[in-house]
């Protein structure tokens, strides 16, 4: 007999595994395509290119593997399926589904540019590989945050018996899921440009490496704001007979934070990517360019700060 709660429960599991596998599949395809193209450009550096490709493919699959862990946790026979628990677990689908799909595709971008860069500069492959590994592992940060929130949701969902608490868990998943979309795109664009710039001018390595650390940290600041809101929402104790206005305020806070990070994430990523391109062209002006880029990104991130403020006010005065 098919009941709604079972439909929702297994739908959640299918959704997260399906979307993250789709993302990882597209990403692995893009990376392999670029590697084959790079080998056809420089056949003698085939060993270095395939080494970079294998490390890249292993990291592209991080999101899919973490989702597999969550899916196995949800499929375990101890999970008691009721309607409220299934609605709460839809938060996991929001958190890991959206993030995993995007991160799978986006973490292939640095691999693509890195294999082209190795084909261009075969004797510099160690440093290009280092930069690719660094950028790619920082791109995985949203997935780790979403995984964290998903685990907390899956532990709390087993003891949820009323609707307000189920909606609270759904909101927190929605917040981190929507909130990591924009900054993930920004991180991907920046990583692509960083590896491309290194292939363009290998003398800029000593400048691009520290710039990558700072820029990716600043681009992912909006994700950290949405993680904060998610953690605040998830730790609110709600009574079973909660006022519906409170629940609407929570949904509004999640959507506000989620869409508030979309623009700043992409804009900050594009700013940093352009700055990285300029640094690759003129490494001698590193100090000036990086400071200008930092100031611009700081101002862009302050608009994510307003979303954070409004979301916090919505939660406090609910």
């Amino acid at each position, binding site marked *: 007999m098919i009941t709604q709660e079972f439909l929702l429960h297994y739908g959640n599991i299918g959704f997260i595994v399906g979307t993250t596998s789709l993302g990882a599949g597209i990403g692995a395809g893009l990376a392999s395509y670029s590697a084959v193209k790079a080998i056809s450009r420089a056949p003698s550096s085939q060993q270095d290119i395939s080494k970079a490709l294998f490390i890249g493919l292993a990291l592209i699959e991080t999101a899919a593997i973490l989702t597999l862990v969550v899916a196995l946790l949800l499929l375990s026979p101890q999970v008691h399926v009721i309607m409220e628990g299934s609605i709460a677990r839809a938060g996991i689908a929001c958190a890991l589904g959206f993030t995993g799909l995007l991160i799978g595709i986006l973490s292939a971008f640095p691999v693509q540019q890195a294999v082209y860069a190795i084909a261009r500069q075969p004797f510099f492959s160690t440093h290009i590989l280092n930069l690719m590994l660094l950028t790619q592992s*920082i791109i995985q940060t949203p997935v780790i945050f979403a995984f964290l929130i998903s685990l907390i949701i899956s532990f709390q969902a087993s003891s949820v018996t009323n609707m307000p608490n189920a909606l609270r868990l759904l909101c927190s998943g929605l917040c981190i899921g929507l909130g990591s979309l924009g900054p993930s795109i920004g991180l991907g664009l920046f990583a692509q440009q960083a590896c491309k710039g290194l292939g363009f001018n290998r003398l800029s390595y000593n400048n691009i490496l520290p710039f990558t650390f700072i820029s*990716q940290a600043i681009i992912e*600041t909006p994700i950290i704001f949405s993680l904060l809101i998610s953690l605040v929402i998830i730790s609110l104790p709600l009574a079973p007979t909660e006022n519906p206005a409170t629940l609407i305020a929570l949904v509004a806070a999640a959507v506000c934070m989620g869409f508030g990070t979309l623009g700043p994430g992409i804009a900050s990523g594009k700013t940093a990517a352009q700055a990285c391109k300029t640094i690759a062209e003129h490494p001698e002006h590193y100090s000036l360019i990086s400071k200008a880029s930092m100031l611009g990104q700081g101002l862009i991130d302050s608009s994510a700060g*307003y979303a954070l403020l409004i979301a916090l006010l919505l939660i406090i005065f609910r």
Partner: protein
Amino acid sequence: MESFETSSAHYWNPFSYWGIDNPYLLINKELLINTWITMGVLIALVFIVRFFFYRKNSLVRFMLIAFLEAFMDLTQQTLGSFSYYPFSVVVCLFTFILMCNWISLIPYVEEPTKYLNTTLALAIVAFFYKEYITIKNVGIGGYLKEFLQPFFIMLPINIIGHFSKIVSMSFRLFGNIFGGAIITSIYMGALAGSIALETLGLISGLNIVITSFFVIFEGFIQAFVFAMLTLTYLAIAMQTSHEGMVD
């Protein structure tokens, strides 16, 4: 949040004798002991390095010199000119956070940076050092005037942008280290059931891969990001004093 924290952490109330029962005055015993272990390891490391540093041609001497020179170059590149006090603050923060992230390689010891208290304290230290540098360079009037740039309407916006730095720095470190610690603990918990799985994990090298990625690599990246962000904020604070505006 609660399901993770209350189950694993043990709290101690130092004021219970006087009948004060405030949840904000509780002390996390595990965090305290883990921080002491980290500090003990760091102090022991200082004595070992100092012992070998005065011997000619020792490996430790070369490693220490390479480490400090890399950071000196970085400081010079970011600040424009080398300056001793920002350099020492940044190296100190980096070493402490790195040791905090790597301390979980010792069995039964957990990372102090897994708790928000530690990371918040570190972010507050970095933030107020930056404020101190700004006030020292431009004076208290110039510091307050910066909040009114470019128009006075921007005051609330500037204040939010200013203090969100503490939030972003502390939560970045906390989220990454906490996430990594949970992933490693889930992996170890999955293996703990049977001896066959444990030997398989040891022989296939999956243990080493997961530990080296989530503890060593991620811990190094987060420590370096924290130090670099502090250095960049210091660079911006110093630069506003000399030139006024970025051109």
